[in-house]
C-alpha cells in the first residue's frame, strides 16, 4: 500500500519535471500538494474519527493532514477555514453546530455559515437518544409528558453545554409539549452522565453512540430516538415523533465544506472521492460502531439541507432564549 503510493509519487514527480522541461507550461493537476482537513473538535470524537477515515482511505493521490483546531463550539476551526485560500487544499469537517446552530446562538459569529463556505458533501448523521434515570417512573415519551405535567418543576435535563444539539433537543421538547424542564448544562457529556446515573438530573438527549451501551445494560432507560426515521444502529427504539410528537427531529450531522470560491471541478472531485470511500463496506462497519448513519449528498443537496437546518434551529434557539456570547 505504502510502496504503491511512493511509486505513484515518484512517477508524478518525474512526469511533472518532464512536463516542466518540455515546455514550461505544465498544467497544474489538482491536487499537487497535501490537503489540510480541519476538525473543529479535539481528537477522539466522531468528527475526528470521520476525518481520519477520509485521510486514511482517500484516493485523491495526496495525503490529507487532519488538523484539530478545537474551541468556541467549533467556531475557531471553522473561522480558520473560512479565511483560508479557496484553492481546494483546505477543508473543514462541518457539524450541525458550526454550520447551523451556532449562527443562531452567537450574536457575533467570526464567519458567515453560508457565504464563507462552499458545500462539498454530507457524510453522516446520528440521532440523539432520549434517556432517563431508571428511577423515574416513566416508560415512554407520553408517560414522560404526563409526568412532567403532573410534577411541574421536578424534571431537569442535562447537556454538554448551551446550544449543543443535546441542549436544543430538550428545548424542542419543551416548546412542543409545553412541559416545564430545567436545563442543566455541563462542560461535557462525560460530566453529565454520572449525575444522570445518580438521579441528580432525570433525563438527557444524549448522543446515540455513547448512550446506547448504558441503555442496553439497564443503567439508563431509553425512551426514544430523535431522528425522523429509526436509526439502523437501534431499530428497536421508537422515535420520539412516533410517540405522539410528529415533526420532532434533532440530528447531529457531519459534512465537508471548503472555503467559498473553491473551483467547482475541484469540489466535484473531493465529493466523488468521499462518496466512493464512504460506500466501502469496512467504512460502513466503522460508522455502525460509531453509531453514525452514512448520508451522502451532492454539494447542492448539502446546501439545501443546511438552509433548512439553519431555519429550524434558529426558531428553536430563539424560543429557548439560549445564547453563547
Amino acid at each position: 500500500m505504502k510502496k504503491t503510493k511512493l511509486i505513484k509519487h515518484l512517477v508524478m514527480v518525474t512526469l511533472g519535471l518532464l512536463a516542466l522541461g518540455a515546455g514550461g507550461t505544465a498544467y497544474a493537476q489538482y491536487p499537487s500538494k497535501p490537503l489540510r482537513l480541519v476538525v473543529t473538535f479535539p481528537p477522539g470524537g466522531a468528527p475526528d474519527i470521520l476525518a481520519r477515515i477520509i485521510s486514511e482511505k482517500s484516493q485523491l493521490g495526496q495525503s490529507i493532514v487532519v488538523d484539530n483546531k478545537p474551541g468556541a463550539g467549533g467556531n475557531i476551526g471553522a473561522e480558520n477555514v473560512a479565511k483560508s485560500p479557496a484553492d481546494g487544499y483546505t477543508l473543514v469537517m462541518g457539524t450541525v453546530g458550526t454550520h447551523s446552530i451556532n449562527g443562531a446562538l452567537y450574536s457575533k459569529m467570526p464567519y458567515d455559515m453560508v457565504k464563507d463556505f462552499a458545500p462539498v458533501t454530507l457524510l453522516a448523521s446520528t440521532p440523539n437518544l432520549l434517556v432517563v434515570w431508571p428511577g423515574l417512573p416513566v416508560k415512554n415519551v407520553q408517560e414522560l409528558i404526563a409526568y412532567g405535567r403532573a410534577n411541574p418543576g421536578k424534571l431537569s435535563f442535562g447537556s454538554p453545554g448551551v446550544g449543543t444539539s443535546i441542549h436544543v433537543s430538550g428545548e424542542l421538547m419543551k416548546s412542543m409539549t409545553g412541559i416545564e424542564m430545567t436545563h442543566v448544562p455541563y462542560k461535557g457529556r462525560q460530566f453529565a452522565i454520572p449525575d444522570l446515573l445518580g438521579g441528580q438530573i432525570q433525563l438527557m438527549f444524549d448522543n446515540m453512540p455513547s448512550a446506547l451501551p448504558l441503555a442496553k445494560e439497564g443503567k439508563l432507560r431509553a425512551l426514544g430516538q430523535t431522528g425522523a426515521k429509526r436509526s439502523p444502529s437501534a431499530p428497536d427504539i421508537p422515535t420520539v415523533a412516533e410517540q405522539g410528537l410528529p415533526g420532532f427531529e434533532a440530528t447531529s450531522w457531519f459534512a465537508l465544506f471548503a472555503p467559498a470560491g473553491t473551483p467547482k471541478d475541484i469540489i466535484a472531485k473531493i465529493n466523488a472521492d468521499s462518496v466512493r470511500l464512504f460506500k466501502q463496506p469496512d467504512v460502513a462497519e466503522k460508522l455502525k460502531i460509531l453509531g453514525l448513519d452514512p448520508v451522502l449528498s451532492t454539494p447542492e443537496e448539502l446546501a439545501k439541507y443546511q438552509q433548512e437546518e439553519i431555519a429550524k434551529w434558529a426558531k428553536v434557539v430563539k424560543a429557548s432564549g439560549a445564547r453563547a456570547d
Partner: protein
Amino acid sequence: METLIANLSTGFGAVLALEPLTILGMSFNLPMNLAYCFIGAVIGTLIGVLPGLGPVATIAMLLPATYALPPLGVLIMLSGIYYGAHYGGSTTAIIVNLPGETSSVVTCIDGYQMARRGRAGVALSTAAIGSFVAGCAGTLLLAAFAVPLAEVAFKFGPAEYFSLMVLGLIGAVVLASGSLIKAIAMIVLGLLGGIIGTDVNTGVSRYAFDIPELADGIGFVAVAMGVFGFAEVMTNLEQKEHREVFTNKVTSMFPSKDDFKRMFAPIVRGTILGSVLGILPGGGAALASFGAYSLEKKVSKNSAEFGKGAIEGVAGPESANNAAAQTSFIPLLTLGIPPNAVMALMVGAMTIHNIQPGPQVMTSNPQLFWGLIASMWIGNLMLVILNLPLIGMWVQLLKVPYRMLYPAILMFCCIGVFSVNNNSFDVLITVLFGVLGIMFIKFASEPAPLLLGFILGPMMEENLRRAMLLSRGDPTVFFTRPLSLTMLIMAAALLAIIALPQIAKRREETFVEE
C-alpha cells in the same frame, strides 16, 4: 476473592501472551503487549519530562498511528503514556521547577527546594517510590472494587462537589509557606483568571473581549508554563555571574534510612486520599496532590520545614497523584465515561478498534478489561525499574550550562503550549503569564495557590450554580445532604486551625505594643 484472582490471571495471561512476530523473514514468539506497555511507559516518561508537552497532545498525535495495532495493545500503550507522563512530570518539577501537569504543581514547592539543597536525587527517588506504592495500591483497588466504587461516585452530586471545592480552596491557603495575606491574594487572582471564558450555565462570554481563543478560557498549561517556566528562566537571567549552581553539592542519590522513615506515613496517607479523589469523575483527581500536600503540612512533625525542602511534601502529593491516576480509570472502565481529556482519547481509540466503550466491556471483552488492569501494575513496575537508574542522568541535566538549558526549556515550553490546541495564541498567553510570574517573584508571592485557584475556581462556581439550579434556588441543599455537610464542617474546622494562630499572634503583637 477467588473470582478476583481468576480475573487477574486472565489479565496477566492476556498481557504476557506470546504473539508471533516476523522480523527479517524470521518468526519469533514475543510478548507483544508487554512491549507496548514498555513503549508506552518510555514515551510517557519522556513527554512528562519535556515541559508542556503533555499526554493529551502526544496521544492525539499517536492516535492515527495506532490503527494497525490490536486494541489491547493500543490501550496498554496509551495508558502507559498516561501514567508515565504523570511520573515524568515530577522530574521536571523537581529539577527545573516546571510543572507539566496539574498534579505536579505542588511537587515543585518542596521538590525543587530539595534539589536546591543538593537533594535532587533523593527527591526523585522519593517520587518514584511513592508513585510505585500508590500505583500498586490504586491498581489493586481498581481490580477489586471497580464496580461498587463507580456506584459510590454517583452519590456525589453538584452540592457535594461544591463543598469539596470549598474544602480544597481553604486547604490551598496552607500551600503557601510565606505570608498568609499574599496566599489569599494569589488564590483570589487565580479564581478571577479562571472565570475568563464562556460561562457554562448561561453561555455568556466573560472577559473574552470577542477573542474567539479566549472563549474556552485560558488553558492550565499556558498559565503554568508562564508563571513557572518563563518566569524562572527570566529571573535567572538577571543574575549575571553567580547563578545558582546546586549540582556540586549533590549529596546522595538515594534516600537514607531516616528519609525512608519520614516518607512512609505520607505515602500511605497520600495513596488513600488520592485513591478516593481519583474515583470522582468531576475533577476530584485535580485535587489529589494539592489535598495531600495540605494534609501533610498540617499533620507533619516537620511542618516548619515545608516549603524549604521537606521530603514529606514530595512523598505525599506524588503518591496521591499516582493513586488518583489509577483510580480515575474506574469511570472509564466501568461505564465508558472518560473523566479527562486523555481518557476521552482512549474512548476514541476503542471506537476506532470497533469496541463500544460502556459497562458491557467488562463482560464482552474480559481479556481487554483485565489485561489493561494487569498491564497497569506491570507498567508501574517498569516505570520504577526504568526511572531509578535514570535519576543519575536527570541530575546530570543540571550540569548543562544555562546558556544551553534555558533556551531549550523555553523552546519546549512553547512547543508544549502550542500543541495543546495547535494554536499560537496560547503561546502569547504564556508570555503574558511569564511577565506576571516575574512580578510574583519580585513581590515574593507564590504561584502554587494561584494555580489551584485557577483550577478550582471555575469548577466551584459551576457546581455551586448547578446545585442551586437543581434545588430550584434553595441554598439549604448544601447543609441537608450529609456528605456535603460533612465536608463543609471539615472546611470550617480547617479554617479555624489556620486562623486561630494568626489571631493569637496578632493579639500578642498588640499586647507587646501596649
